[in-house]
């Protein structure tokens, strides 16, 4: 495993590595290209007005913004809405060169995009080992060691009895085992203590870089996401209001961006 920069160091002091330079925008074909995405819900409400973003192979992208800004809707717009949700998705979503807009979660899953949803990330009645078995249908043997080590000793525990942090780890573990090319993580830090979030994010980053999986991290908590992301977008009222490399900006700048008081 190549030496990776310390994800816990403040962003401005992180040296630019070969990896993050390769992920610089415009340097090579994008894994995911989203152009002018719009999402309209059944009741007419617009979740996303106009969002454009791109993700390079192996990049970690943070999508930040206030509650209700349209981050989750953006993620779902990429990862697929269920038919029963009656949403209209506009714009272009191109994954690995092929159009994907409007495809449901089953199809996007098959193409290699896995979404870890915001709430209800695990099956409470099923044991951890059974979760791994479910994921095992997609290649990785259930008995293979967990990328998130703490889960190893919890294999027999029912997911409903796990702590918040453990559940998030399980959700991510199940997602990894499906061998995604692109991982979409919605609000991983929600309800978790800062210490737990730090640990989670660092594991996430190390696993992602190990497997060269691209990740889009949606989070309300900017600092934890910024620590591990290469680039970030800020979404306000369904539109991208700021984008850039994370080593050029601090969490405070981003927070000002949320509140719209910068520049």
């Amino acid at each position, binding site marked *: 495993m190549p030496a990776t920069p310390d994800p816990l160091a403040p962003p401005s002091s992180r040296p630019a590595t070969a990896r993050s330079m390769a992920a610089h925008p415009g340097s090579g074909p994008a894994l995911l290209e989203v152009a002018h995405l719009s999402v309209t819900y059944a009741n007419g409400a617009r979740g996303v007005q106009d969002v454009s973003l791109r993700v390079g192979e192996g990049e970690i992208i943070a999508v930040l913004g206030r509650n209700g800004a349209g981050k989750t809707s953006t993620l779902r717009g990429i990862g697929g809405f269920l038919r029963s949700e009656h949403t209209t998705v506009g714009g272009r979503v191109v994954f690995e060169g092929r159009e994907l807009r409007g495809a449901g979660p089953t199809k996007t899953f098959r193409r290699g995009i896995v979404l870890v949803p915001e709430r209800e990330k695990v099956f409470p009645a*099923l044991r951890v080992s059974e979760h791994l078995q479910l994921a095992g249908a997609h290649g990785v043997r259930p008995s293979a060691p967990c990328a998130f080590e703490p889960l190893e000793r919890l294999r027999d525990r029912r997911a409903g009895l796990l702590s918040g942090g453990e559940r998030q780890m399980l959700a991510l573990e199940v997602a990894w085992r499906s061998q995604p090319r692109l991982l979409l993580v919605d609000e991983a830090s929600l309800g978790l203590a800062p210490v737990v979030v730090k640990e989670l994010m660092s594991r996430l980053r190390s696993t992602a870089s190990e497997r060269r999986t691209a990740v889009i991290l949606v989070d309300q908590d900017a600092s934890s996401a910024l620590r591990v992301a290469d680039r970030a977008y800020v979404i306000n009222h369904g539109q991208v209001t700021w984008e850039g490399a994370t080593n050029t900006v601090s969490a405070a700048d981003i927070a000002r961006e949320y509140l719209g008081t910068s520049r």
Partner: protein
Amino acid sequence: MSNDVATIVINGLVNGCIYALIGVGFVVIFRATGVVSFAQGAFMVLGAEIFASLVNDGLSTGPAAILAAGGAFIFGGLVYWLAFSRLTGAEAFITSVATVGLGILVEAGVLLIWGPAIIVIPQLFSYQVHHVVGQLGFSNIDLFAMAVTVAVFAVVLFGLHRTPVGLRMRAVANNPRLAVFTGVNVLVTSTLAWAIAGLTAALAGIVYLVGTQPDPGSIYALGLAAFPAILLGGFDSIPGTLVGGIIIGLVQATVAVYVGGAWQDVVAYGVLLAVLLLRPQGMFGSPQVARL
């Protein structure tokens, strides 16, 4: 053992088995797709009529039962695939009314094909009675009913807990939305659930037919008569539906002997009301079904 008690035990167990067979399919549908099906009676009639036709044409009991149940299996799956898969996300009440419509449609179809008369089949089992103790003796028909029930429950429980397909069904039952995101093909799993429900209901219909000489209408009515058993056991519990079925069966048999046959249904529905008022999740239901 006195004659009365023996009658109660035998009738109670056999009727309980029929309720349990109806109920297990119901619970499987409910857990996999969230639909409260009022159409189990229709699958029962379908299974019974197909079985009767096959048996009257000379086919022996076993193969006839397998074919009839298989037909209902396919039919149940088709019904979900073509119709109820388009109702995902609808309110529970709507889907239930849809099952009422389905039941009416299937019942009409059955009556048009086979007619409303009592279903007559040749004698399939000898009247040999196997005595256990005193007056308590089970006939071959009784044993058939109980054997089928035990087999079905064993297969369903084993399948759910020890096979990959069963695991996927449990995942869908536990969190349908997440199941989609984890790559489970919910359409296939749900279709399978409905197919299983069709099969178990058909077997229930066949068991009922073999023991009595019913007309299609009475078989259809049984589909609703199973509700007290299902609620008593717990809306989403498979073992519960077996226990609930047997308890209701025994209660009804007792009422029939000591009070009068006409009171059986009322008492069962009285139990249903009591369960709803006192403990809606029944004996083994999960907390999620305490308030539906």
